[in-house]
């Protein structure tokens, strides 16, 4: 199992100007922010990109105002949510992402699902490679067995069984936390 910095450790290192820590923090939360913009609020890609950059700009700017280093995750979720709503209000654009069309209950449900997904995602980091890479390529990047086999220099015929074993590892890791 890999040794992973906690959110609090990462925030603390970012505050001291550690560029590697900032890179890791962006990497850790980038999918979460992206998913909130695209799935929960269904922003068009160009608006999602602006919100995505705005979120990380504000996180960097206001990192020293965070009350508890552990609370970075809910803070990022809240900030992203607020900026998505601001964007929808200011855009006045026709389309599925119009503010009036959003069901607040649906947004809350989507955010809760993404929060759980981030917890599962974090367990991939603990399990480490090659499972992390195999599961990421298959489930998150939608790559075929053949592509995964070629990329990781593994026989394509073994990928399905590896995925199954890796999911079992992730499950064990998640259940070990409860």
């Amino acid at each position, binding site marked *: 199992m890999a040794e992973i910095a906690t959110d609090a450790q990462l925030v603390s290192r970012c505050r001291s100007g550690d560029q590697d820590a900032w890179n890791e923090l962006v990497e850790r939360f*980038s999918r979460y922010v992206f998913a909130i913009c695209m799935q929960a609020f269904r922003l068009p890609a160009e608006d999602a990109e602006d919100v995505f950059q*705005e979120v990380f*700009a504000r996180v*960097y700017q206001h990192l020293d105002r965070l009350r508890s280093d552990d609370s970075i995750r809910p803070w990022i979720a809240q900030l992203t949510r607020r900026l998505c709503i601001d964007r929808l209000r200011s855009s006045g654009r026709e389309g599925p992402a119009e503010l009036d069309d959003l069901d607040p209950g649906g947004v809350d449900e989507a955010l809760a699902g993404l929060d759980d997904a981030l917890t599962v*995602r974090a367990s991939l980091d603990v399990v480490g490679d090659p499972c992390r890479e195999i599961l*990421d390529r298959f489930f998150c990047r939608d790559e075929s067995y053949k592509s995964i086999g070629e990329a990781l220099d593994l026989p394509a015929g073994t990928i399905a069984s590896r995925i199954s074993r890796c999911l079992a590892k*992730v499950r064990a890791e998640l259940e070990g936390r409860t």
Partner: protein
Amino acid sequence: MTGYDEERIAAFLRLLPPPPEGWVKAAQELPQARAEIAALVTRALEDAAARARIVADLESALEAEGIEPTPSVVAALRASLDAD
């Protein structure tokens, strides 16, 4: 979350595809971008007219300084001006 069967784990993993690489890279480069725009912010703080010009058109203000106004740089400039 309660219950972690493999099917559910797979469904959760599918919810988090990666954003475009360029977005992540731009966000990671924010600390350097902020150093580049610091002079612009300082000028805005010292001169109300300059601040008004910058706030009115962030992209043009950055271009005038030879800084490419990518979404991350514009966001960093906006965050800096809001903070000051």
